[in-house]
């Protein structure tokens, strides 16, 4: 049965139980997934970001290391890889990794349009397709709302012509939320991407409820606050609640906090390490915190 996001959330609110918040398990023993309401697809709760980590230029050793990370990501059931023309050589490095891995069919390719020139948008998308080696993207997003009116028009036309799977807009670091809200209310976007983690929770007030109401999928970026959270908590003992939700490390706790919000579709941690990508993907399975535990987690992490 295809379950729309709106209907799902409606039933959740009615039930009001923590158990009902649990996302769906993909076929087999893969990670838990959440639906993309507008098109009926589904995505694992954890994806893969590429900011900084995949911008390794022409370094052959580092490129192979990135390909290994991608290989481990797909092996653990991962699908969504997110990038941007702003991220230096990241798209090229992703393309290298995909070719080396034999173009995994599970890939959900997500990148962005990042140019202040409206006319350069289509050209940038073609470049990105060439760099990734994909015939079309599953998701194209307007990066940080740059020239969003023009790019949104271009992307919507591409989607209507069947040359694109989904359309989205992004912000980060909590910027321009009022403008994002207006776009979400007035345009039929499939995805929004925002910064959300246990320390940056501004989106809980308006953006996430609006996304749930409008059936817009949500990608949470900067899940570790650019590495600050994992660094700050490294070496600190895990609180008792970590075992309750099957977390073996802080990174998993941070991720479970994010993806257990019912309006979040997936979080996109970036990493250069195979052991970390496996640990991150493991956060997309097992028990998830209920609302009461989420409140305790947020209090402990903010303390």
């Amino acid at each position, binding site marked *: 049965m295809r379950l729309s996001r709106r209907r799902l959330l409606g039933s959740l609110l009615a039930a009001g139980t923590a158990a009902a918040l649990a996302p769906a398990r993909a076929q087999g023993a893969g990670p838990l997934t959440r639906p993309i309401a507008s098109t009926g697809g589904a995505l694992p709760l954890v994806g893969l970001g590429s900011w900084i980590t995949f*911008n390794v230029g022409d*370094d052959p050793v580092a490129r192979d290391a990135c390909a290994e990370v991608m290989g481990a990501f797909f092996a653990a059931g991962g699908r969504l890889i997110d990038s941007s023309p*702003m991220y230096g050589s990241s798209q090229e490095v992703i393309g290298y990794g995909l070719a080396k891995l034999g173009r995994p069919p599970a890939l959900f390719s997500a990148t962005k349009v990042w140019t202040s020139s409206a006319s350069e948008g289509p050209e940038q998308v073609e470049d990105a397709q060439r760099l990734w080696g994909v015939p079309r993207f599953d998701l194209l997003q307007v990066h940080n709302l740059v020239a969003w009116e023009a790019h949104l028009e271009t992307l919507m036309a591409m989607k209507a012509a069947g040359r694109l799977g989904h359309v989205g807009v992004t912000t980060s670091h909590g910027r321009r939320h009022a403008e994002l809200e207006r776009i979400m209310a007035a345009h039929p976007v499939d995805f929004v991407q925002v910064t959300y983690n246990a320390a940056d929770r501004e989106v809980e007030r308006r953006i996430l409820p609006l996304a749930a109401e409008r059936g817009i999928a949500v990608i949470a970026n900067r899940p570790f606050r650019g590495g600050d959270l994992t660094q700050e908590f490294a070496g600190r003992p895990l609180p008792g609640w970590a075992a309750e939700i099957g977390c073996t490390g802080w990174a998993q706790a941070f991720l479970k906090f994010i993806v257990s919000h019912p309006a979040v579709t997936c979080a996109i941690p970036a990493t250069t390490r195979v052991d970390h990508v496996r640990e991150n993907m493991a956060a997309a399975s097992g028990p998830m915190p209920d609302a009461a535990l989420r409140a305790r987690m947020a209090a402990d992490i903010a303390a």
Partner: protein
Amino acid sequence: MPTWMSYSLSDLLLFSPRTYYRLFELMNAALWPAHVPLLAAALAVAVLALAGHRRAGRGAAALLAAAWAWTAVDFLGIRYAAVNWAAPWFAGAFLAQAALLAWQGLFRDRLQPAPGGRAGTALYLAAVLLMPLAAPLSGRLWTQAEPFGLAPDPTAAATLGLLAAARAPWSLWIVPLLWCAVSGATLRTMEAPDFWVLPTIGLLALALRLRRHPV
């Protein structure tokens, strides 16, 4: 508050320190043994300058112009540009500096060793001989050393040393001093322990120049 004011330098850093220093490692492996004749030429310029030789100015200008041009094309224009989309702009500035050095120093002979310029020459020698040691001293691999004439930081530092030791137009100071600020800020954002070295050399060179002949 405008949106751009909410960005910090760390939000704009596109690459990891590991990636940045690997650029030098790969560059050194690709260009070795060009380091040897380059070092010999750099030391020859120092000898000419210390001896007050009449060709010291043109010799220094030729070496520095070549160093800025090479660094612009190879390191900034190709290697750094692969991970930083701002690098082509830096390469343009370095090429402009190379052209300015060639014009003022080679054609107009306006890079003349000045009396009392020994401290500046010492700064030049420190940039050529000691700055490459910053990598091993900061806990990085010695294969990631940044040599004068191939990497931007020691090239800018050595130039500032020679400018401090010379009578030269102020226009030659602009790009090297700007690079001190850009590179210092980048390294500071990368939390490099030696981020202060290049800006300090820039300030020292400026102080030496002003002490000798205030504006």
